[in-house]
């Protein structure tokens, strides 16, 4: 039995999330709400341990494939397990587990009743399954299907609260995200038309021989992908849906969307551009420069918009746009250090942004305040929370000894290697701007007069995930080795083809 699970671990990770998503409503029907929470937690544990198990296997014996339904590659589907996908699996498992530990005690209160809470968990599990599938799939159409499942479930958990503001944000998100998936599907159609294959490896082999005959068609296809994935991962000119959606959703939803879901689409872009099409073709069609420009624009514009916001969650939502910019910049650099930095930044930003959203939600639950100007003197009332906030903000700005630094340092190295001085300037400016939009909150929390808050207790279980996240940010800044190894192996795998 154990051997069977070990052998089929890649597919079982996806299937377990899917199973638990559809088992939850059954338990809800018979009012076993205790089992609902336990099942959700157990599934995330399984994803996390599955990810770690696959990562050790990949580090020990290199990437491998898992063949579905006994059909070999050109006819059947296959799943690849490589450093990149295991990095994503570990990230999804860890973040979702912590978010669930935070969310489970308060979910029923926040959504109104336990039935709605169960439906929320169902959608959450579907999102997990879709993201795990995106991380593992090795087939363009499979990628599209998982993107679509992630989009619909992501939209639905934005609107889980059911008030007017979040419903409107959901509709906006749904329309724009579906527009994006139309573009992705069109791009896949062009690639299929050119190569006659949907398996990424076979597409790559075909294109490597014949791409110079179809330069214009390939250009159209890749620009379809850029627009589609750009809308879904919210880079600067295409970001309009993100602030509304991420700030009006309930806390666990905005945390999972900001931290993981957006990066799932970046992963889709990476898979298409670097595995299916190949870095050489991407560089020689000047797509890298477009990614670089999008990244720089996102860093600057997202940070400046974030400074202008007065609401805590909205500021964090705009900061997500800026941080996505770093990842695009790393992808556009198209060299080893740049890609390593981008992948490490994906992981560290997931930790940081989850912590920030959970803190915002915790403050909202405890004090009922969401505006930044109301948070005077809260540092003395909630020392643990604001301590974690300080750690995480330092990580976001990229101070050494915190996890944000490692990613940004690698991005800097990549820019130096590419000789791109503009990118270096933008990276430094981005750090300064991050400091401008985060440090005033800390200053206000500690160095202004106290307000009279009624008995603020921090001794609930909800504080635990926040502290774990802050601790991980610190730990990863000092001992980045495990994640950095996976990230650099992923980068060399993508560039080595």
């Amino acid at each position, binding site marked *: 039995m154990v051997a069977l699970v070990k052998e089929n671990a890649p597919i079982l990770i996806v*299937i377990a999330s899917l*199973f638990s998503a559809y088992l939850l409503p059954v338990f809800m*029907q018979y009012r076993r709400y205790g089992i609902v929470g336990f099942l959700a937690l157990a599934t995330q544990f399984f994803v996390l341990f599955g990810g770690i198990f696959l990562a050790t296997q990949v580090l020990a014996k290199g990437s491998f494939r898992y063949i*579905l*339904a*006994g059909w070999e590659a050109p006819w059947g589907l296959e799943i690849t397990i490589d450093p990149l996908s295991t990095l994503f699996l570990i990230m999804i498992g860890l973040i979702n587990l912590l978010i669930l530990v935070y969310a489970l005690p308060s979910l029923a209160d926040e959504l109104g009743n336990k039935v709605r809470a169960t439906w929320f968990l169902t959608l959450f599990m579907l999102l997990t399954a879709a993201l795990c599938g995106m991380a593992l799939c090795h087939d363009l159409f499979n990628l599209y299907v998982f993107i679509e499942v992630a989009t619909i479930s992501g939209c639905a958990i934005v609107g889980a609260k059911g008030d007017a503001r979040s419903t409107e944000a959901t509709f906006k998100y749904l329309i724009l995200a579906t527009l994006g998936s139309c573009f992705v599907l069109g791009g896949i159609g062009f690639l299929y038309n050119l190569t006659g294959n949907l398996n990424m490896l076979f597409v790559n082999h075909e294109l490597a021989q014949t791409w110079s005959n179809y330069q214009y068609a390939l250009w159209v296809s890749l620009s379809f992908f850029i627009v589609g994935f750009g809308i879904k991962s919210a880079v600067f000119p295409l970001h309009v849906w993100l602030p509304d959606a991420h700030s009006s959703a309930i806390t666990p939803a905005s945390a999972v969307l900001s931290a993981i879901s957006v990066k799932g689409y970046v992963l889709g872009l990476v898979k298409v551009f670097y595995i299916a099409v190949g870095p050489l073709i991407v560089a020689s069609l000047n797509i890298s420069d477009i990614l670089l420009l999008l990244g720089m624009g996102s860093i600057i514009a997202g940070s400046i918009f974030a400074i202008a916001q007065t609401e805590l969650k909205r500021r964090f939502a705009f900061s997500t746009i800026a941080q996505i910019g770093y990842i695009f910049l790393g992808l556009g650099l198209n060299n080893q250090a740049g890609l390593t930095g981008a992948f490490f930044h994906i992981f560290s930003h997931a930790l940081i942004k989850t912590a920030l959203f959970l803190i915002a939600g915790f403050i909202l639950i405890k004090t009922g305040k969401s505006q930044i100007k109301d948070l005077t003197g809260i540092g003395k009332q909630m020392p643990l929370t604001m301590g974690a906030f300080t750690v995480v903000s330092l990580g976001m700005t990229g101070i050494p000894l915190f996890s944000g630094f490692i990613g940004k340092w690698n991005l800097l190295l990549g820019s130096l290697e590419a000789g791109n001085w503009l990118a270096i300037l933008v990276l430094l400016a981005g750090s300064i701007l991050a400091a401008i939009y985060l440090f005033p909150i800390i200053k206000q929390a500690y160095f202004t007069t106290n307000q009279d808050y009624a008995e603020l207790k921090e001794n609930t279980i909800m504080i635990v995930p926040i502290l774990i996240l802050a601790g991980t940010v610190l730990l990863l800044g000092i001992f980045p080795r495990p994640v950095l190894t996976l990230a650099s192996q992923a980068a060399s795998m993508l560039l080595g083809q």
Partner: protein
Amino acid sequence: MLDFILKKVVLILLPFIQMFGIYVIFHGHLSPGGSFAGGIIVAVGFICYSLVFGAEKGQEKIPHKITNLIESFGTLWYGLMGLVGVLRGAGFLLNKGAVAVGQPGNLFSGGLIFLITFGVGLKVASTMVTLFFTLTEEE
């Protein structure tokens, strides 16, 4: 009068619509159509009934609890059928080699596909019915 004719016509047509839907579901591997199209046809039968006789009477026939359970059942059934291949020591969703595959052209050919389409058809039908009731319910 119009109401009377509508009700009679629907009652006469309903079995045929349902029968055709089930036919399309189960012949998915032999002829055009399949579980999705067949499931929608089955659901359209129920929707016709609820449109003519009123949503309350339709919901009496298929309570929300039942559609809810069927929806879960469809997906879980698909997953379980996929796990058959895992238990037989090969990949997920293994079909040929896991169970006996009949003669091509017969109804009982294609191994697990027959069983899988059954679950998916149920799931699609119940989802469509749920969607219809969600859109029609007042406030």
